[in-house]
């Protein structure tokens, strides 16, 4: 069944469905197996408040179309920022060159699916339409709250960014899929100073919503107070310990552990090419029975969620690890076809100028049954890490690092002194085998994650309940 497609590209850029069908034919003119066109209009705004001044406001417009042709394991790709006929056809012909047979593309008929499987971020006002004054007001609230938290707070930088992303995907198998994806984010950075000792603290929040996301626990004042609290706390932090020890991870953002330790290693492209430390481990035990890990792109309003991925596939809830056993991989179209597996809606790209590759959406561990207090009480001597910066993984050796920005010593079952940030290093395929307690307090992060792979940045989410890892190496300086 065909329904009229409402897309900015058809309404405002003079494209017709008939034109798009012709471009797809041209893309397959050298005999490719499959072609798609990815039209994208991404509008971003940002505002930065610092030294109590609105220092700048920015607007960015990224418009373009990427043409992809698949032929066996090969991908031909070209893109154009000019949406006129001549330029798109040139891109289609360039991408077509990856294939080399004389069969022609034939006639392609496009139709739109009757309804979207998901409607995860239905909002009344798109970020691109928001009033700048309303955004400035949020930043000013954060600034005042941070400065009044403590006299030791010397600097506050509050920033706001939003994105409105229109996509239209047309494929040679006849699909015409569009989506409009809102995204907002706010960050507060504070620097505290005491007798020449300077420390910083950060907090942020966001989601695929409008400014209403910044309320209650994510109110700008709450974010600011949290950033200020971290900065002031670190003024009294001791150097972090060095060596292997018991580590308790707090709920929420520490889920970056899952993202680095196992998530990347389970992206299908690495496993199809057998370059991942997880290659060939499906069906095997890679974690303790307490661990069930999910990637779910279908949670309403979350930063990592999408109605459809950047290949037009509806997103899924994919079980990666169930009770410790590895269940499957995160797939895009190319890998799923070559591996004979179902697509999971994880084919994502930074923009029209990049090919889609398997990426995570929102990756988290299911809650267990322990209480968070019980987990802490069980540790004789260890580290309790509650806030993290970034992480990185070597997917081939499986070694990963993630860096705590707030951590405490645990001594005889009690949280005692704060310690300075330190990196934690471990081995992806074995670290979850050392998870001996999982608490009942699963939290998703506040909506600020950015993941980088092969030079492409995409927004993601993570989540974790409080967990205990029996041994992981803490990279501090103190014996």
């Amino acid at each position, binding site marked *: 069944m065909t329904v009229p497609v409402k897309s900015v590209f058809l309404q405002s850029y003079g494209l017709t469905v008939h034109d798009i069908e012709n471009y797809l034919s041209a893309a397959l003119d050298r005999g490719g197996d499959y072609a798609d066109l990815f039209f994208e209009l991404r509008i971003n705004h940002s505002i930065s408040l610092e030294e109590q001044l609105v220092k*700048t406001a920015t607007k960015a*417009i990224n418009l373009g179309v990427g043409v992809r042709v698949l032929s066996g394991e090969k991908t031909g790709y070209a893109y154009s*920022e000019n949406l006129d006929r001549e330029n798109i056809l040139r891109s289609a012909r360039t991408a077509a060159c990856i294939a080399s047979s004389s069969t022609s593309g034939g006639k392609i008929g496009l139709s739109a699916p009757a309804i979207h499987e998901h409607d995860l971020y239905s909002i009344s006002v798109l970020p691109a339409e928001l009033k700048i004054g309303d955004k400035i007001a949020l930043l000013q609230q954060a600034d005042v709250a941070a400065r009044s938290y403590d006299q030791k707070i010397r600097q506050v*930088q509050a920033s706001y960014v939003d994105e409105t992303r229109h996509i239209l995907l047309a494929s040679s198998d006849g699909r015409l899929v569009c989506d409009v994806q809102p995204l907002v984010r706010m960050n507060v950075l504070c620097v505290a100073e005491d007798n020449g000792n300077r420390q*910083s603290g950060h907090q942020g929040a966001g989601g695929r919503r409008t400014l209403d996301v910044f309320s209650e626990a994510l109110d700008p004042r709450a974010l600011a107070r949290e950033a200020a609290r971290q900065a002031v706390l670190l003024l009294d932090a001791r150097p972090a310990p060095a060596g292997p020890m018991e580590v308790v991870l707090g709920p929420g953002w520490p889920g970056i552990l899952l993202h680095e330790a196992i998530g990347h290693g389970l992206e299908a492209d690495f496993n199809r090419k057998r370059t991942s430390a997880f290659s060939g481990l499906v069906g095997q035990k890679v974690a303790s029975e307490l661990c069930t890990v999910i990637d779910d792109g279908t949670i309403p309003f979350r930063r990592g969620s999408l109605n459809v991925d950047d290949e037009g596939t509806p997103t899924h809830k994919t079980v990666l690890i169930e009770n410790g056993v590895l269940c499957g991989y995160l797939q895009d179209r190319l890998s799923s076809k070559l591996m004979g597996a179902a697509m999971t809606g994880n084919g994502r790209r930074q923009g029209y100028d990049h090919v889609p590759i398997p990426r995570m959406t929102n990756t988290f561990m299911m809650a267990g049954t322990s209480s968070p207090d019980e987990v802490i009480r069980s540790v004789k001597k260890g580290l309790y890490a509650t806030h993290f910066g970034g992480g990185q993984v070597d997917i081939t050796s499986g070694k990963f690092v993630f860096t705590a920005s707030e951590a405490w010593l645990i001594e005889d079952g009690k949280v005692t002194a704060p310690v300075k940030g330190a990196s934690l*290093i471990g*081995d992806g395929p074995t670290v979850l085998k050392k998870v001996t307690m999982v608490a009942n307090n699963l939290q998703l992060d506040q909506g600020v994650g950015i993941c980088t792979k092969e030079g492409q940045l995409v927004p993601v989410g993570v989540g974790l309940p409080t967990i205990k890892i029996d041994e992981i190496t803490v990279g501090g300086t103190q014996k």
Partner: protein
Amino acid sequence: MTGTLKEIACHVVDRARKQGATAADALLREDETFEVAVRRGNVEKLKEAVSKNLRLRVFLGNRTAASQTSDLSADRVDRLVDETVEMARLTSEDESGGLPDPTAFSGEVPDLQLSDSTWDELNAEHRIDLARRAEAAAFEADSLITNSKGGFFQFERSRTVLANTVGFVGGYEATAGYLATAPIAESGGAMQQDHWFTITRYRDRLDSPEQVGRRAAERVLRRLGARRVKTCQVPVVFDPMASRTLLKHVFDAVSGDAIYRKRSFLVDQIGEVVADKNVTVVDNAHLVGGLGSSPFDDEGVATQFTPIIENGVLRSYLNSAYTGRKLATRPTGNGNRTASGGIRVGPTNFYLEPGNDSPDAIVGTVKSGLYVLELIGFGVNTVTGDYSRGVTGLWIEDGKFVYPVHEVTIAANLRQMLQDIEMIGNDISFKGPVAAPTLKIRNMTLSGE
């Protein structure tokens, strides 16, 4: 929008002025890119495009806003100029705002030879062949190399034009080619990856694919059989690919953006000893053919040679027009245009001057210690200098490599690490805008078993 990059840039700043801007500058860039990935001998990905981009900054007195667009249709560009001026009305008066002082625009700039037209003689077939040969050379080097992430060739030609409302109009063209391969080696059921690459503005300076492949193979093979070591305090030697990351941290700490915000461990230390007496660090925009070289920066300021650390003494920070005013000094030609159109301080060619010791001689002085091949993670705090990162490397015993090491971290404070640079190699090579030779650091905490 039709017209040359220069015509568009001039039109944009004129329109901004007519809309009420007191000053504006526009950077137009056109990039021609070609990318091929070959894996196990077969072409995996071919990508080609020509793209254009406008980045605009406007001032209304001391208020400012910025914008960026890849849509250069006349109508869209004009609308964006108007919207940018409107946004600027809503920002704050900032006494340090504005275009650079007009005297900063002039300057004698040598011919930096950033472009090589002979890349055009290398057609797509040749480019694919280079990638294929680099990967093949790695496979041929040893049967323990069982897999590959691929062989890669990339080429980029960019044309940059900058125009502003006080009469500056300038432009330049630059080319760069990149050839790499990333083999995977396997033994005892464990895999390791590494890569090697060559990058240059000149076609005849590209290393041969065979050299690239063999070097990549050597690098990955020496990681096989990696193990952990016990937590200890040891001297640490950084391979140039690792030491250049240390220089990146030094850059972050001397950037005017970090200094005026007091978010650097090097705040208020001009004239102080901040590193070992043999350490000299410079930012040199005038290296002929340098990957970070340019005749003027992204706000039109003439680029220069800036001494950063001389014989251990901190001499200068790096500044844009804005951070220069904040710090009551002149811009150093380090204004980089961000993706959203504003200006941030960036490095040109930022490097630690090479010393006299060969890398072998440096390793030879280590009784027991770690040689760093690769660092992962983000455990560096520019505000405090605290440093903690994951390492893959080689263990040194009595001056010789004895076995590879992984799943350990090294930690210290950058302030102390700079003071503890005990030996400096003679082996600098420029594989990007930031570079350093082999470095030996007297003592760091290694955290392992």
